[in-house]
């Protein structure tokens, strides 16, 4: 059965996007009036960065997940393969949004998001001058374009071979995917860290943490697993994905559970080591966040850690669609809050607040995200054919 976007879903995404546009415009107008519009470019580009990076992250993390499954020659995921590809289908749009954001920030000389793009500031700042080779507009753009080009090439390659496999079958494509998946993981291992440094960590330009890349990456991965489980349950409810049974749902639930722990572990490792060493140049990151976002910052951590841990611990909970969706939605917004504090904590600081612009842009890009994913699901049959491990996936049991 071919998947078609239902009337409700169609209306829902249009309302989300319309509401998002209205809220964003109200937010921009309000910000223009506030303090002579002094903070407008910063707040707007900050919000663009939060949302484009957050949703781009979900897409790239599901592409990573697909590559991981190819490289490890896993069997169980075959029944939900098209769901993973569907979420990864947002990648071109995510890349587009990111590039628009970076172009806007670059044209505004950093817009007080990337301070190292502002020549006036760099002139008086020795620490940034010391990083001038790496953090320069040209090199930043070269790196960014290299990352997104390689990501997109792999995405299109995986997609093309996946659709081709439906028609020709055999193991030749399977082994090709295996090799390509492994090489993607090599690229992604490096790029996931360096891109997080370039795009997010350079906001706090004086600060550095080697662990930061993994922390950002585990957050994206966790959100991607949540989107996958919610999307799978949604499609099941509509009567699609007949091959997916509760064992597959259980497995995705396990991923949500496990990656929540990975994220919490990395968050805590970064926090505890810096707290323990107590070196001023390292603690600035947490000092600013605790000063201006204390409740949100620790609240976000507790929600993203405790909710999945307590509610998804038992076997039955991971097979309960209502509970998975409930926890998933809460942790989804918890991770959005994480990205919000990452970006705003280093840029807006004490002036940051969640207003029309924040909610508006979130709704707008969330609406676009859902719509693009559902559209990409309609482009191919939801049940794959001819995958060598298809039979094993159908009989999957845990």
């Amino acid at each position, binding site marked *: 059965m071919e998947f078609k976007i239902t009337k409700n879903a169609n209306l829902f995404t249009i309302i989300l996007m319309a509401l998002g546009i209205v809220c964003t415009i109200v937010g921009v107008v309000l910000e223009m009036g506030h303090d002579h519009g002094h903070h407008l470019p910063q707040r707007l580009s900050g919000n663009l960065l939060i949302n484009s990076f957050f949703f781009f992250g979900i897409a790239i993390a599901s592409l990573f997940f697909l590559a991981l499954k190819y490289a490890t020659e896993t069997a169980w995921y075959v029944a939900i393969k098209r769901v993973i590809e569907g979420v990864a289908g947002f990648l071109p749009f995510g890349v587009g949004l990111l590039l628009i954001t970076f172009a806007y920030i670059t044209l505004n000389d950093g817009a007080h998001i990337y301070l190292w793009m502002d020549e006036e500031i760099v002139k008086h700042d020795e620490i940034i001058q010391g990083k001038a080779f790496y953090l320069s507009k040209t090199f930043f753009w070269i790196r960014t374009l290299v990352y997104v080009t390689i990501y997109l090439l792999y995405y299109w390659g995986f997609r093309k071979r996946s659709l081709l496999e439906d028609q020709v079958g055999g193991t030749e494509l399977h082994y090709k995917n295996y090799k390509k998946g492994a090489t993607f993981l090599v690229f992604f291992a490096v790029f996931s860290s360096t891109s997080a440094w370039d795009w997010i960590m350079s906001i706090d330009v004086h600060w550095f943490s080697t662990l930061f890349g993994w922390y950002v990456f585990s957050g994206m991965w966790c959100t991607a697993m949540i989107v996958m489980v919610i999307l799978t349950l949604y499609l099941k409810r509509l009567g699609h994905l007949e091959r997916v049974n509760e064992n597959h749902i259980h497995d995705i639930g396990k991923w949500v559970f496990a990656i929540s722990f990975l994220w919490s572990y990395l968050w805590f490792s970064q926090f*505890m080591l810096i707290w323990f060493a*107590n070196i001023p140049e390292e603690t600035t990151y947490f000092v600013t966040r605790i000063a201006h976002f204390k409740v949100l910052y620790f609240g976000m951590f507790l929600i993203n850690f405790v909710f999945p841990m307590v509610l998804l611990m038992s076997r039955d909970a991971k097979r309960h669609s209502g509970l998975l969706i409930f926890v998933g939605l809460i942790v989804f917004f918890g991770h959005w809050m994480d990205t919000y504090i990452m970006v705003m904590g280093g840029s807006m600081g004490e002036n940051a607040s969640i207003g029309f612009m924040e909610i508006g842009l979130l709704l707008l890009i969330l609406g676009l995200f859902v719509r693009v994913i559902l559209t990409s699901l309609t482009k191919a049959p939801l049940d794959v054919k001819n995958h060598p491990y298809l039979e094993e996936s159908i009989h999957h049991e845990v």
Partner: protein
Amino acid sequence: MAERIIYATYEDDDVLKSSAKKLVSKGVRIAEVFSPFPIHGIDPIIGVKNTRLGIMAFLYGLTGLLLATVGMKYIMIDDWPMNVGGKPNGTYLENMLAFIPVTFEFTVMCAAHGMAITYLWKNKTLPGLPASNPHPRTTDDRFVMELRLSENNKFTTEELEDMLQTSGASELDFKYVK
């Protein structure tokens, strides 16, 4: 009461599985299956209930968490307050971050050891216990099904033997337990 046990040996796990399905559908109760490796999907056929080891793991973990907290509170705060790198040591809460890694490790250790010991104990395979499998080859390449006559009153011994042999058992052994 004397108990009579039949051990039916199979050379293939798939044959054993399909044979178990057939026997159970006729109303035969299978007491136990011995196999060198886990046979996928045999549990629901012979009526093994879902394991409760997970619940025990949670309880062991909770014990570890509690022991670690109480222990460190006493050792590091109450009995002899230690100043490590100038970190606050007035109350447990002030220095909690430093204690979390140890708490985590101790929780994991208690859960893992508790689970392993419980598992071995429930399977009667703790080190030093006598082997309970009927045939040494069930640890190598044979699969054995155990039937107890007291649980299968509906059938005579001959009927059971006949069913087992037609279902593909390569060998039948009998054992009397006083």
